[in-house]
């Protein structure tokens, strides 16, 4: 039980501790993971600073010129360096639409993940800590939902919301409905993992110590148990981000996602699809590639994080 026999005396500052940690070391060891991290960071940053990063604002009708429509990418014969990846049927610069589209995809994806996480972790904590019939009810709900494909759940919620929301608010509310739909479709994964981790932590003596002094269960769940179960949840969230982006893209592709005024990558792919067989391949190809790269990078990061946080593999 000689704890930390290999330990060096720990350096003081947080930055030092991160740089010196085993996790960062495994990060530095893998070029693939570092590349994925860079790619993801680029996406997030460009999405955040879209108006400044994108060469044009493709959704401002004043800047569009129909004469520019259907320009191929810059390196082809008829292309021009004005439009790096070409333009679509309205003369919008594809590169810019991708940047703005990623922004929508990321906002929806990220928010949906936060929603799922809060809902799922909360229910998982309750189920694991309180146990009994609360546990049974929550887990059976999760089981039932897991038998339905996530897309279907999102579609159902979307459909219900459309009926409930008055017509004139539909476009405004569409994003929120979408976030709600995708968020609800994914909570069972978080609940399952959190519940398992909570069951383990609940029996540990530091929880008993808190109970002895009379700390209320809610406080124990949030201040004692939650920090210790977040590890695996973070991994799920990273992979969940990829899932949420794909789900949103699918829904938008099907036409039930974001409104056309705020196209996401999925919308762009759908729109571009119409022109695929008439020879303007770039309108759908580049948004598709952008989507694939984003999801791949996020997935790789999630995989690495899971392995890095797994104490058995360390």
């Amino acid at each position, binding site marked *: 039980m000689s704890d930390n026999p290999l330990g060096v005396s720990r350096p003081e500052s947080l930055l030092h501790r991160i740089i010196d940690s085993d996790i960062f070391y495994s990060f530095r060891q893998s070029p693939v993971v570092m590349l994925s991290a860079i790619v993801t960071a680029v996406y997030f940053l460009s999405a955040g600073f879209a108006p400044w990063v994108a060469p044009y604002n493709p959704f401002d009708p004043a800047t569009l010129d129909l004469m520019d429509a259907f320009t191929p990418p810059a390196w082809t014969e008829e292309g021009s360096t004005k439009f790096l990846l070409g333009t679509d049927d309205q003369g919008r610069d594809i590169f810019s639409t991708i940047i703005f589209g990623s922004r929508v995809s990321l906002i929806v994806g990220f928010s949906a993940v936060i929603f799922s996480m809060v809902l799922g972790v909360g229910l998982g904590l309750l189920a694991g800590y309180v146990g009994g019939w609360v546990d049974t009810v929550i887990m059976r709900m999760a089981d039932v939902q897991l038998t339905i494909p996530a897309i279907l759940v999102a579609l159902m919620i979307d459909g219900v919301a459309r009926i409930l929301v008055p017509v004139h608010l539909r476009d405004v509310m569409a994003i929120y409905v979408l976030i709600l739909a995708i968020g609800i479709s994914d909570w069972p994964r978080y609940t399952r993992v959190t519940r398992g981790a909570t069951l383990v932590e609940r029996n*540990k003596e530091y929880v008993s110590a808190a109970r002895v*002094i009379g700390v209320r269960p809610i406080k124990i769940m949030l201040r004692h148990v939650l920090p210790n179960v977040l590890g695996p949840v973070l991994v799920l969230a990273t992979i969940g981000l990829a899932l949420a982006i794909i789900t949103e893209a699918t829904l938008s592709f099907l036409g039930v996602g974001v409104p056309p005024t705020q196209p996401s990558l999925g919308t762009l792919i759908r729109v571009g699809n119409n022109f695929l067989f008439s020879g303007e391949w770039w309108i759908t190809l580049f948004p598709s590639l952008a989507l694939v790269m984003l999801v791949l990078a996020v997935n790789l990061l999630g995989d690495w994080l899971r392995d890095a946080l797994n104490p058995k593999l360390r």
Partner: protein
Amino acid sequence: MPKKTTQAPSLHPPMLEVDNLAKYFDVSKPLLARVIERLPRQILKAVDGVSFKIEPGQTFSLVGESGCGKSTVAKLIVGLHKPTRGLIKFDGSDVADAKSSAEIAAMRRRWQMIFQDPYASLNPRWRVRDIIAEPIREFKLAFSKAEIFDRVGALLTQVGLSPVDGEKYPHEFSGGQRQRISIARALSSNPEFLVCDEPTSALDVSVQAQILNLMKDLQKDVGLTYLFISHNLAVVYHLSDMIGVMYLGRLCEVSSAKELFHAPQHPYTRLLLETIPDLEMTGRVREPVGGEVPNPITPPSGCAFHPRCPFANERCKSETPKLTESSGHLVACFGAEEGRLPDAKYTAPKQAAAS
């Protein structure tokens, strides 16, 4: 060293009085399985009618092997389990009488618990100073950050660590140091009564010595009463005033430490003392009694020890003995009652010559 037990009759009520305490756990299989396989309900009687008293300033130890229920008794006393039956009186008043949250909190402040596993008893995500400060904050004993951290610093010094250790996280400390942190946390609410559940069982021998010395010092300095749970008889000998021996949820024998080791009455006590290793190297041949602790879900009838007892008779198989007075001890044994037991053959090894 076991202290004298002949005290002047105390004007104070006992710090802790436990009467016929019991805790049953329902360990039956789920309803569906039971119906299909036609299984009966299974009840685990972890504690089945335990009664004892602890006077203020004393150290009372509960010893026994796994499954005897000593840890469950500790948890019942501090409120981690609700008793199935029985009475717990703390400083003269029934703990069940405290109804309002203020009353309950006032009562809870006066006792604390230390646990066995130094690695699981501190929240790995909290800093040490927050761990120690938790009871202070919970019981609202101090309010300003400065006040609280001053108190934490003083506590850390009291248990042999340094105030700057408050900034660190538990994983930066060794097992013995973590137990010290646990003790500091336990002391932070100024309790009078400390329940210690095998606090040194997971520690190395030299570290155990440090912790035991610390606990003795604190008892003198702060005036604590201890309920000490252990399976290690030598540690119990060193620390206790009174000892209760448990087997399968019941008390076999209660007596002063010196008396218990000098003239053990109950056959199980005698068996336990036989297992103490011969560190004095007297060449004493041990005669370990055979058999194992039975499954607590299906305990033997009557006296739970009868299958392993060399002195068991028919009565032992059908009736359950109660704790009665015998040669100055409280013993739950028909053999002792009926005077059938031979004189205790076990004698404590003579004091070692100076090495």
